[in-house]
């Protein structure tokens, strides 16, 4: 048992480190290190523009999407090399946020199901950040039950005509292309009538509207489709096979191994180390210590769980299922930590401005944003189902709509 690199890994790390040291946009280092909990703000610059510049530079040095084959814009790197790269990229990795959906979900789907021509046309530009991709799966009536989606695609000659609405589309407003799943046959059971496409987000009839979220911010969008024309050449997989194509996409979504999820623990530790309560420092209070220690142990547990996964990759093995717990644990922990930090602030905890008592409202912001961590990318409940079914081997849910034609499934509860 050790934490050392193999000689090859060490050499790779050294190469990556040197390149990053020579090329990273160091003027943003401080601002990036201060941005936590997934929210990146640059005071005087547009995050997408800065991100694109960094991504382009990485692509020129063959460091973008490095685990992809060279002919599609990657470096042909091994999974462990990708992890090492992420570790070395450090805070600059936060700049890759606009490209993560493309790299993690859309790209792999195009790679698996696209024509050779499409792969050569789209993947290198996706990798280099020149073109940004978004994912158009969720709908107002199809969240966890995404196979229940309603957006229709109808065949007209060599084209498909799309009508409907998607929701929770991160980055739709700055994306060039989108990966779209739509219903092509409403007369068969829901999983069987779906087809996957990709489309130009500038196509006539595509309308992107920002959603104002519960935390007051606007990070997601609704996307409306009115008679949008998609050529059949932009179909991924066979007609009616969209569900199995989407599983490739979603499987890739959960493979984000090197990425550390925010837990709120370092922020909370620092806060408690400095907060004066009536009896003294918060961190000297037995009740505070007890909670803090439990959270710290959980957060360490997540870190070392990811080390176990990395070790499997390093040996060229397939990682076990243990990494599936990350988002489930960290999402709940963020929310609990925010609630408790505010409790320690007493009456002033209600304030969300630049108040000294509330450390500029960072935990208030965490509180308001944390519900999304427990929903986006698989709700806590879906994640528990996945663990129960795929890891523990428990039976799947009884699906009452499994064999019912889609257009006969009830659409209202009462």
């Amino acid at each position, binding site marked *: 048992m050790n*934490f*050392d690199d193999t000689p090859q890994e060490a050499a790779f790390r050294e190469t990556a480190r040197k390149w990053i040291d020579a090329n990273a946009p160091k003027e943003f280092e401080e601002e990036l290190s201060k941005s936590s909990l997934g929210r990146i703000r640059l005071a005087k610059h547009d995050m997408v523009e800065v991100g694109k510049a960094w991504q382009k530079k990485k692509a020129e040095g063959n460091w973008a999407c490095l685990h992809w084959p060279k002919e599609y814009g990657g470096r042909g790197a091994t999974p462990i090399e990708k992890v090492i790269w992420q570790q070395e990229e450090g805070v600059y990795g936060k700049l890759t946020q606009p490209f993560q959906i493309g790299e993690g979900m859309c790209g792999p789907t195009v790679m698996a199901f696209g024509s050779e021509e499409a792969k050569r046309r789209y993947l290198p530009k996706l990798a280099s950040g020149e073109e940004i991709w978004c994912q158009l799966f969720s709908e107002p009536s199809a969240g966890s039950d995404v196979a229940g989606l309603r957006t229709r695609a109808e065949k007209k000659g060599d084209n498909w005509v799309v009508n409907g609405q998607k929701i929770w589309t991160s980055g739709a407003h700055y994306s060039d292309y989108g990966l779209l799943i739509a219903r092509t046959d409403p007369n068969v059971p829901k999983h069987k009538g779906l087809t996957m496409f990709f489309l130009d987000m500038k196509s006539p009839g595509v309308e992107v509207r920002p959603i104002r979220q519960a935390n007051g911010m606007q990070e997601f969008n609704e996307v409306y489709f009115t008679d949008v024309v998609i050529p059949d050449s932009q179909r991924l997989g066979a007609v009616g096979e969209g569900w199995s194509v989407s599983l490739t996409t979603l499987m890739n979504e959960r493979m984000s191994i090197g990425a550390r999820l925010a837990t709120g623990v370092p922020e909370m530790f620092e806060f408690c180390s400095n907060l004066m309560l009536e009896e003294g420092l918060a961190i000297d209070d037995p009740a505070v210590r007890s909670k803090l220690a439990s959270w710290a142990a959980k957060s360490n547990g997540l870190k*070392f769980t990811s*080390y176990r996964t990395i070790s499997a990759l390093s040996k060229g093995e397939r990682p076990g299922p243990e990494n599936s717990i990350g988002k489930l644990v960290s999402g709940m922990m963020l929310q609990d930590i925010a609630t408790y930090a505010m409790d320690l602030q007493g009456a002033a905890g209600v304030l969300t401005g630049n108040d000294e008592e509330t450390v500029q409202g960072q935990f208030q912001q965490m509180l308001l944003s944390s519900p999304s961590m427990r929903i986006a990318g698989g709700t806590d409940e879906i994640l528990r189902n996945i663990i*129960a079914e795929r890891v523990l081997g428990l039976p799947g849910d009884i699906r009452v709509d499994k064999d019912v034609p889609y257009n006969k499934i009830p659409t209202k509860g009462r």
Partner: protein
Amino acid sequence: MNFDFSDDQKQLRDQARKFLAEKCSPKAVRAVLDGKAPYDKELWKGLAEMGFLGVAIPEEFGGAGAGHLELCVIAEEMGRANAPVPFSSTVYLAAEALLIAGNDAQKKKWLPAIASGEAIGTLALFEGKGNPAPKNVKLTAANGVLNGIKKPVADGAIADFAVVAARTGSSGRDSDVSLFLVDLKAGGVEVKSLTNLDPTRGQAEIAFKDAKAEPLGAAGEGWSILTQVLDRAAVLCAFEQVGGSDRALEMGRDYALDRIAFGRQIGSFQAVKHMLADMYVSATLARSNSYYGAWALSTNAAELPEAAAAARISATQAFQHCAKNNIQVHGGMGFTWEFDCHMYYRRANAMALGLGSLSYWEDQLIDRMRKKNAA
């Protein structure tokens, strides 16, 4: 990075699992639970023959001379099997104290006897309620004899010798505490069995009345040695707790697959599935923290105090969580004496207190994190 056990260590784990599946069935555990014997002597003998008791004891002292990583994988299997033997008292506490602080003669006297299964050892630290703390050590040592009462002492009624924490000063500092070795079969020692949560591991009260004792380690060094012993034991116990957590989770999972209610497997209800998924989460966090503890223990790293506390907390919480919800998944059957669920519930809750309570270790973790942050 190779944050995993080696193939040889995994093989040893499989070997231990196979051995315990055969020699330590739930029926064997029940014999001790029902009071037919204070511990499973046959199993203890078998563990010695397999070389498990001395796996981390150097060859020159009669052990296998492997290491602590090997001991960790065996500990996990001991926890999984709920083994009714004085393994933790003898191997994690007494042997580790001797390895850290014993002189050559002491090591020669006791370590080979531990490895061969002839001697059972324990640590006599607690004196009634309270957590490990120098101020809670009241038993006195003077002129080579001990006077005072220790309780609870794990496996005290079957132990041949004890490492005893005694007060040798009154400065109010940690250096007031020194450690002693006492032959419990000699005079001046009165042992009384106490009933406890987990009868598969006995607890005792030991009264020392002018009991002859020899110093273990330097005078005044007792607390610092003890801290190291407790940290090592915390990691090793964490592996037992991880093994127990996994077993309780498996029992719950298996029952959820077998049991039919409302015309379907109860494991198809989300209320049950999610309970089991949460048990998996706890057990996974505990395992990963314990691996870090194992690394720190085996390399004697400066990170051991923090790693041990985190492993202890995580594994204690996981075992309590899994053992408790295993009963819940079983419903009424889980609350019968006949089903094995309560054996893990008892063990989980007894282990949660053995080296000091959860809140004690939470306190330790924060202190140690602060120390690290300050450095």
